[in-house]
């Protein structure tokens, strides 16, 4: 028993910052909760009004503050409550994704998904997969601030 506890304490637990749009993905994560779907508690949700409002600066900043992975999730294409917000998000975040990989950040660290308000199970799976993919990479220290 003692031994087991020590093992779980030393196991690395990745931190995920999840930017969820208010209308779809945030409601989707809520649904996962009220449906009592079990999924890892590693993601810190930050609700934004639209995935299109996620500036690449938010992502860089999250990595700078020590996030091991960043997830951006919005409504499915065509379902945006602001008509075209997720189209704009897709373009902007494609560029930051390419840029992160270009300077040598592991491709797994940034992820984007479309989750509707009815897809609680999908949201749970996305977080589950993300945590599993991040675990072998270990802590993110490339973009993390080095100053105290």
């Amino acid at each position: 028993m003692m031994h087991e506890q020590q093992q779980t304490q030393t196991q690395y637990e990745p931190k995920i910052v999840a930017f969820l749009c208010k209308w779809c993905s945030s409601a989707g994560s809520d649904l996962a909760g009220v449906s009592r779907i079990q999924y890892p508690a590693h993601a810190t949700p930050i609700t934004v009004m639209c995935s299109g409002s996620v500036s690449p600066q938010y992502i860089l900043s999250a990595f700078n503050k020590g996030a091991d992975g960043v997830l951006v999730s919005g409504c499915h294409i065509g379902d945006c409550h602001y008509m075209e917000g997720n189209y704009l998000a897709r373009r902007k975040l494609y560029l930051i994704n390419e840029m992160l990989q270009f300077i040598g950040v592991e491709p797994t660290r940034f992820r984007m998904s479309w989750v509707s308000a009815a897809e609680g199970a999908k949201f749970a799976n996305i977080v589950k997969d993300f945590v599993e993919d991040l675990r072998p990479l270990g802590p993110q220290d490339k973009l993390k601030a080095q100053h105290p």
Partner: protein
Amino acid sequence: MINPQDLCTRARDLLASGEVRAVVGYRRGSRGMAAEPVVITKPEEAASLVWDPSCVHNLALYLVADRKRLAHLHQTPGKPIAIVAKGCDARALVVLMQENYFKREEVYILGVSCESTGVWDDQKLMQRLGCDSQSLTGGRFDGDDFVVTTATGEQRISAPECMADRCLECRHPFPTMNNVVLGEEKARTLAAPFAALSRFEEATGTQPARWAFWQRQFERCIRCFACRSVCPMCYCEECIVDSITFTVALDTTAAEKANRVRWIQRSATRSENIGYHMTRALHLAGRCIDCGECERVCPVHIPLRLLNNKLEKESREKFGYEPGVSIEIASLVSSFRDDDPNDFIR
């Protein structure tokens, strides 16, 4: 071939007729024969203008500076300013007009075509000649060659040998938007577009190799902000790295000062340098016209063009977007297409 005398005559006539209030161009500097930017306002000063392979600067920067100065003085622009513009400089002007930074009629574009060559890269040239830039006393275009004068006499060099990388890779060495243009439009292929980027991507194919390379580059950055100062597109009044609008008054508490939002710290550490350079690259996505000035002025030689070229290449291939082509089209990040890449999203 352009006769530099034609440029002087044009500039003189423009100033004498009162059509423009100033001409931004190049004159002989104090370091060897290297040109330096100059703003002239009197017709008799026009004789000092030069056009040779050392005219490397992107002069669009000075129109931005003028616009900022006028805004601070609460003055209206009045008559246009004439600007000597190469192909790349003219593209920069197109982007600035696309963003409504100034109107087309506020600028008189004195286009100069690079024809079959471009400007030289100081370091490449010095290496080729085996001397320093001080001892270079003359240089001019001659067809596909540069003719340079040093202490040992005149020497003819094949231009591609010591041209700047960005000029070798240039697609449009001709200023398509212009009021008047000197020189001809010539089709040419000196190096494949994005050649330097492709070389880099091939050499560092894997993710750890990429990181090893960029880590070394970003650690060297001293945050002098020369790249930001020289860039005509970096015209924000307040930059994300140094906020100027946070007013410290008598009643500003220590907590307020401590808690103000700082996206990126000013310390020159690796993480903050990456934050700065990544942000700059993304802010220039679809706006950078590859004038290569940031890389040229970098005192620690960080290959900044690679970052900008990467995004330029992605936006060209995936979104069919080319910066500096038309004033009318919507900018890269304010437009979208139904068939934008979607396969990276779950």
